[in-house]
């Protein structure tokens, strides 16, 4: 059994979940501590990945390959490259913070932590699977815990939001399942689900188009790209804080990750054909998300729409076909995870104090909670791309990459950044400045130690990436280069319609 | 001078169709069940006809099986119908709406 740190990081949370299950449910503080300890342990394990990972090589590393269902060519195959490395680390990094953000969960905490830990296994697994069956398993495995997290611990319209989230994602992923199966049989006499064996499977162009759309349906729902985004504001708004954090920081990235890991390399010709469409959708997402965010009255909903805009940026960078765009998009995935995660945590902290998410209910908080205001402003600035903070690096790379690829598309994208500055700063101003609307706002308590501990690592990373992104980009670029190449390859076979089947 | 199997088969087919239509449009359980019996009779005729067509008695043996099955079905079916009427305290076994979802 050759297992790597990666496999340990994937399954450690499940061990944690079992541990949580053993703890008696009355014992709330023990439950929290066990969950926290398990996530911290997982994070430490994932540092092992970082140590073992060799920068500068494009291929997959820390691979594990075990036989599982040989009858159907299913194997347990994991491994990471420069893209998934940061996604895995982002997940393991944010998870302890999400547990810290869950202190307000006192009802059915045991089930809550079990679902949260199961979710972590699913997310880590998605980013490290090199077998389509395994990937799909993890992909769907993220769905159920999230469904319960939203539905059981969410806010008023939680059931509606949970159902919508589940069904949107399920329709997409089932179409992808059909696509995976088609690909599986197209691969030749010895069908396999292995990712690397499936790469470069020759396919007729019309088959490629259909398959790309099947995969795209799944990933575009997850990203989400307009017009498939309508589940997102509901899910983000209704989810409990930790749910919103993981949803925004990691689950959405699964969509973008799927696009570059699977949709493009498997079907490069179809992807090339559809680049204008995807880019258009991305630009629409940037502008639409920003404009809708401007008019939101609900703080969580505002951040949710800002995610739509940010993810538009990420997808734009990935599809322009330049190294800068791709690296920027990948780095931006990390950045968005950090800043949006932090924003959701802050809103969660506000909600814990005042039990409202409406911007109008706040105002003048800067006087009563100066630290919180400061952190909020800082994170907002990171999110809108202030130079020397992480967001700037990513967005700048995306814009440069877009400029080299498709010159004029830069203009609407840049306009999106301006809008982001407006809605975030305006929201900050309305919440933290002016006269306190109520007595409750005046008497609000500032961030406590737990919340500081939970936000401090994020703040530190935001500065670190903003000032010194090199360690990150060093590891991203070789893989990004390969991904860009994959978009330029061709695997089309002449003739042969899709109707005849594989 | 023999009658060609086509005629017998036509008779069997028509009886079968009448059975189908009757079972679908009537509402009394017993009457529906009688139409099912009519369908089985049509089957018997078909079996006997084909037996002669092929020149062996296999088809007639098959009729024997159909008869046994019909008998067993009748016993259970009528018992169920009786049961319902007893438990309802009336003889009202109408309103078997077979195609309700």
């Amino acid at each position, binding site marked *: 059994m050759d297992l790597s740190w990666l496999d340990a990081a994937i399954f450690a949370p499940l061990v944690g979940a079992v541990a949580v299950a053993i703890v008696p449910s009355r014992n709330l503080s023990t439950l929290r501590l066990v969950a926290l300890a398990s996530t911290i342990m997982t994070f430490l394990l994932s540092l092992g990945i970082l140590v073992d990972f060799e920068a500068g090589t494009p291929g997959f590393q820390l691979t594990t390959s075990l036989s599982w269902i040989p009858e159907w060519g299913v194997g347990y195959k994991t491994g990471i490259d420069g893209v998934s490395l940061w996604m895995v680390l982002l997940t393991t990094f944010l998870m302890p913070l999400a547990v810290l953000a869950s202190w307000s969960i006192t009802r059915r905490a045991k089930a809550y932590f079990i679902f949260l830990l199961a979710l972590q296994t699913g997310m880590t697994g998605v980013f490290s699977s090199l077998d389509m069956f395994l990937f799909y398993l993890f992909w769907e495995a993220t769905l159920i815990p999230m469904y319960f997290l939203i539905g059981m611990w969410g806010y008023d319209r939680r059931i509606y939001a949970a159902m919508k989230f589940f069904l949107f994602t399920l329709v997409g992923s089932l179409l992808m399942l059909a696509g995976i199966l088609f690909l599986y049989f197209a691969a030749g006499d010895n069908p396999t689900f292995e990712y690397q064996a499936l790469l470069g499977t020759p396919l007729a162009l019309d088959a490629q188009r259909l398959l790309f759309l099947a995969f795209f349906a799944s990933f575009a729902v997850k990203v989400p790209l307009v017009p498939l985004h309508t589940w997102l504001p509901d899910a983000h708004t209704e989810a409990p804080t930790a749910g919103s954090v993981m949803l925004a920081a990691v689950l959405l990235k699964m969509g973008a990750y799927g696009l570059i890991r699977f949709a493009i390399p498997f079907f490069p010709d179809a992807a090339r054909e559809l680049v204008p469409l995807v880019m258009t959708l991305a630009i629409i997402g940037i502008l639409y998300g920003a404009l809708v965010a401007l008019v939101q009255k609900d703080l969580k909903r505002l951040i949710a729409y800002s995610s739509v805009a940010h993810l538009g940026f990420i997808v734009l960078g990935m599809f322009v076909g330049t190294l800068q765009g791709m690296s920027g998009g990948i780095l931006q995935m990390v950045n968005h995870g950090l800043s949006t995660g932090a924003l959701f945590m802050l809103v969660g902290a506000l909600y814990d104090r005042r039990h409202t998410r409406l911007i109008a209910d706040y105002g003048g908080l800067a006087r009563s909670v100066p630290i919180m205001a400061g952190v909020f402003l800082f994170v907002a600035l990171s999110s809108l791309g202030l130079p020397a903070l992480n967001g700037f690096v990513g967005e700048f790379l995306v814009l440069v990459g877009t400029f080299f690829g498709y010159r004029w598309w830069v203009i609407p994208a840049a306009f999106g950044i301006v809008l982001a500055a407006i809605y975030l700063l305006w929201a900050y101003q309305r919440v933290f400045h002016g006269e306190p609307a109520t007595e409750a706002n005046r008497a609000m308590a500032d961030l406590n130690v737990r919340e500081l501990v939970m936000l401090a690592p994020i703040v530190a990373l935001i500065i670190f990436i903003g000032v010194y992104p090199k360690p990150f980009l060093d590891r991203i670029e070789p893989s990004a280069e390969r991904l860009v190449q994959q978009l330029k390859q061709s695997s089309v076979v002449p003739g042969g319609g899709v109707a005849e089947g594989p | 001078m023999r009658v060609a199997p086509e005629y017998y088969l036509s008779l069997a087919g*028509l009886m079968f169709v*009448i059975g*189908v239509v009757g079972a679908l449009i009537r509402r009394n359980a*017993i009457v529906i069940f009688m139409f099912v*019996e009519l369908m089985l009779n049509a089957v018997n005729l078909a079996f006997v006809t084909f037996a002669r067509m092929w020149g062996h008695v296999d088809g007639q043996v098959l009729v024997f099986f159909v008869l046994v099955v019909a008998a067993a079905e009748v*016993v*259970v079916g009528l018992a169920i119908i009786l049961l319902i009427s007893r438990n309802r305290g009336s003889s009202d076994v109408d309103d078997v709406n077979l195609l309700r979802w």
Partner: protein
Amino acid sequence: MIEIIVFGVVFVVALGSSLAMLFAKNAVHAALFLVATQIALALAFLLEGGQFIAAIQIIVYAGAIMVLFLFVIMLLGVDKKEPLIEPLTGQRPLAIGLGAVLAAEMLWVAWRGIEFAAGGGDAAGRLVDTNQDPGNVLAVARVLFSKYLLPFEATSVMLVVAIVGVMVLARRMGMTTPGEVAAGAGEESDLASPGGGATG
């Protein structure tokens, strides 16, 4: 020649009675028409060289089964008119349309489908020979107890199932209080016997 005439009678009676069943408002009438159909079919079986089958058609079908039917009808007193309301909107026309399609298919197949020479040669003549020697009953018995031995045994299991089933159902009829747990299979029920009777 005799076959043609008798078949004509059989055809008219069987089809006429079946159609009459469709339009009979009274369950007893429908049952009687069914008996007529079955007797006509028994005649047809005779014409086609199935003497044994013709006999049991009368004995079991027209005799036992239909008597059971009439018995139940009388017991329930369903000798009254059925309501003519359509159970499901459009069900009646739909059923008739379906029937028409099915009938067309049946007739088409009957006249198109068996053109190929079944068995070759004078197959019907062979059956006549078999009925001469060793005789219809013996021929049927030989096939039944050799080739069709397994299905024959299977019917016995099926009849046992029917008898057990009717016993269970019969016990549900007399039940008055839920506390009255059935006292096991030893408690013979009257209604179990028709099951045995019809099969005997």
